[in-house]
């Protein structure tokens, strides 16, 4: 039978770029298959997706070589719109694909363009909304939906055209854990349908287990195209391609085992079968090290007592929160969107004031200090660097903070170089901040906050939108800052980052602190975490199932006896 998608020697260079984005890629996807595409930033994943529905070559002005056949038809012929009936493409940025003022119309948009008659449209809208679990949402405004709901709506709007091929380009990247779960559930159901060929670009290795095949792209070429489990077992390949390998698989590979188990359940089974055990003494050493670190912290920099916050519209975002952040700590604030984690953290630099209770920074109430003064002590790096960057050069951008506070020119220049060095961007002073990669822009944002030399650094989702290598790089930088004396508060849902880098964690749920303590303590309580819609990384789950909480593959290796 003819493959649904047949890519033959596809090479593509964007207009204005020197090198090709893809160097001769060949790939066949059969009808009904579920293929996952993985790779580092810039490997060519999005280019591959946009070549499926004709955007390449018709929308972009570049050079294309080779052929892409959709159900036998070449994408070189015909307009993008025509292929939309066969190939549904959902982009990563859920905000930029929704245009209608209500949900039903958004879903009907595609069919309207194809002159589907009204009764049929009504039927499809209903059917598709229930497929993405948004039934009853017909009259809602998209602006009132959560990120996860918006992304599901985007998928629905594409499904309404009843394409036989569905391509999702990093659908879960900017979503919180509940949002991600929603998408994975839909993918689950779609993959079971024979009439839908599903192609998903995904970063979260732990979610790719159900795929039929995994295609790994590296620098515009296919590094591997094999059944999912095989690829997931090839830890070396994944690491070389800047894709995060499965924790359990990596652990067993380091121990020299063949036929690597992939999930915590498989890992547990193999662990026992091999007769290994976790050494309580060595685990105890880890716990000791945690306690010693706790003792080494300085004075309390931020003290929160009985904090409640009620927004003007009546929503109670925080209720009776108590918290202490001491000098030298690295605290992670976890929770899903709407749990109050961002609201909590915005009290620390004065953006929000308590409606009840008190927040003291370095001994003084925040309400009395004001944003300007607090900004000197508590730096806040927002999630999206594009919400901050406005200058012509990196220098001007980083110099903004000190300049606005009236420092002298030499002082400013010194601070800028210091800040850029701290984030690994020495020599970038004259660069165009808008032209840097997302990871670099994020660093510029961090540098611009560091230039003011605050005692506490708050980072809002520092790893969103970055690939594995970039995430490691960013978090290593944060760790270095912490070791050099900065107190770090990171708001995040990336659990492995919390496990490997943070010292302490506080989990927010419905405006209250559900859990708090060292990361080891918090991650040991899987059930409470699940209640807060969070799941620890696989390797941590494995350790938990063996009765001892470990936070990384290295720790697991350190405490395992046998083998």
């Amino acid at each position, binding site marked *: 039978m003819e493959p649904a998608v047949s890519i033959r020697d596809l090479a593509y260079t964007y207009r204005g770029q020197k090198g090709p984005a893809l160097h001769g890629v060949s790939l066949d996807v059969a009808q009904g298959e579920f293929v996952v595409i993985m790779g580092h930033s810039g490997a060519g994943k999005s280019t591959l997706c*946009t070549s499926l*529905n004709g*955007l390449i070559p018709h929308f972009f002005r570049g050079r294309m070589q080779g052929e892409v056949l959709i159900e036998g038809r070449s994408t070189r012929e015909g*307009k*993008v*719109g*025509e292929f*939309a009936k066969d190939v549904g*493409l959902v*982009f990563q*940025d859920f*905000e*930029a*694909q*929704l*245009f*209608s*003022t*209500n949900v*039903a119309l958004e879903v*009907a*948009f*595609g*069919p309207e*363009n*194809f*002159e*589907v008659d*009204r009764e049929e*449209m*009504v039927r499809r809208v209903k059917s598709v909304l229930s497929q993405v679990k948004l039934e009853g949402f017909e*009259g809602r*405004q*998209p*602006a*009132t939906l959560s990120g996860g709901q918006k992304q599901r709506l985007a998928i629905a*709007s*594409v499904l309404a*055209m009843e394409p036989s091929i569905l391509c999702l380009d990093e659908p879960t990247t900017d979503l919180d854990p509940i949002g991600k779960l929603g998408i994975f559930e839909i993918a689950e159901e779609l993959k079971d349908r024979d009439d839908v060929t599903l192609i998903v670009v995904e970063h979260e290795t732990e979610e790719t287990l159900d795929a039929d095949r995994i295609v790994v792209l590296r620098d515009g070429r296919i590094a591997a195209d094999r059944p999912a489990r095989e690829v997931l077992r090839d830890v070396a390949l994944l690491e070389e391609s800047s894709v995060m390998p499965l924790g359990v698989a990596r652990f067993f590979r380091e121990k020299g085992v063949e036929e690597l188990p992939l999930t915590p359940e498989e890992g547990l089974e193999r662990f026992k079968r091999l007769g290994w055990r976790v050494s309580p003494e060595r685990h105890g050493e880890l716990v000791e090290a945690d306690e010693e670190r706790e003792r080494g912290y300085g004075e309390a920099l931020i003290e929160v007592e009985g904090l409640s916050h009620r927004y003007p*519209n009546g929503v109670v975002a925080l209720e009776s929160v108590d918290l202490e952040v001491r000098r030298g700590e690295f605290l992670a604030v976890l929770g899903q969107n709407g749990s109050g984690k961002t609201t909590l953290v*915005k009290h620390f*630099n004065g*953006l929000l004031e308590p409606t009840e209770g008190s927040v003291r920074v370095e001994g003084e109430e925040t309400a009395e200090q004001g*944003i*300007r003064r607090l*900004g000197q002590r508590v*730096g*806040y790096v*927002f999630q*999206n660097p*594009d*919400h*901050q*960057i*406005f200058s012509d050069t990196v220098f001007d951008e980083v110099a*903004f*903070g000190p300049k*606005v506070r009236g420092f002298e020119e030499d002082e400013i220049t010194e601070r800028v170089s210091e800040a850029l060095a701290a984030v690994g961007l020495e020599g970038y002073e004259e660069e165009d901040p*808008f032209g840097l990669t997302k990871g670099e822009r994020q660093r510029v944002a961090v540098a611009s906050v560091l230039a*003011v030399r605050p005692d506490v650094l708050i980072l809002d989702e520092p790893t969103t939108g970055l690939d594995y290598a970039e995430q490691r790089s960013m978090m290593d930088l944060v760790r270095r800052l912490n070791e050099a004396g900065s107190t770090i508060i990171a708001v995040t849902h990336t659990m492995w980052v919390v496990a490997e880098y943070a010292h302490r964690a506080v989990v927010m749920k419905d405006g209250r602190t559900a859990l708090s303590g060292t990361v080891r303590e918090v991650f040991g309580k899987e059930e409470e975490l699940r209640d807060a819609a969070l799941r620890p990384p696989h390797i941590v789950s494995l350790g938990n199932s063996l009765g001892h909480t470990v936070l990384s593959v290295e720790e697991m290796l350190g405490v395992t006896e046998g083998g």
Partner: protein
Amino acid sequence: MDPFLYLDRDTWVHRLDPRTKMLLLIGAFVLAFLFVNPLYGLGVLAVVLAFGAAAKSLVNLKRIWFILFMIAVMTVILWTVFGSGVSPLFWFVEYEALLYGIGAALRIDIMIVAGMIFLSTTRNEEIVTGLVKLGIPYRFAFAVSTALRLVPTIAATGSTIGQAQRSRGLDLESGNIIQRVRKNTPLLIPVFVSTIRSTNVFSMALESKGFGASKERTYFLRLAMGRRDAVVLLVFALMLIAAVTLRLMGYGGVEGFSR
């Protein structure tokens, strides 16, 4: 936060076809425009408010009362200053100019209240579809509709940007007017960049859903003028004719007023 005025109630006004409501709105403008004399203006105001009550939209007056108030005050002041009449009251103020000013203020406010009632009873998508059915080209109506959908999102982004820059020390309060205007640069640029950056993704998403694939398109939203629309329009037309006749007969003006 919902910046739009639409109130989801089930009244006969809500159930009217949006095209009917647009015609009524224009008719209300004409009605308000006809009478300069504040006494007659009050009559028109009464009619409009009655309509608003039937549409259960008057609660929105809370949101715009400040605008109405300031416009009224400024309009009265401006016309009293710039206009002249024949019967002096005090200082340089003449009676006719003051009357005209009050009348003008009433007219403006009536029209705004009418506009508010229209917006309170008509969904954005009904407005856009109504425009299309009245002959506005689809792509234009689409741009309007998309802009409507994006405003709350961009406003929220603007708010976040404001917070981010204030956290870095941006101080919009100090300085003379030129300096304060300049200080908006760190707000305006990120709003522009973060939004315009998405133009290409937007365009790709549109084309990926068949935008422009065929010359014709069908419409999900169905609009139909019914008997209720015809009755309402007829009643209103009669009212309008009566008003115009009244005006032509010389009532409702302000004698002795000039600019």
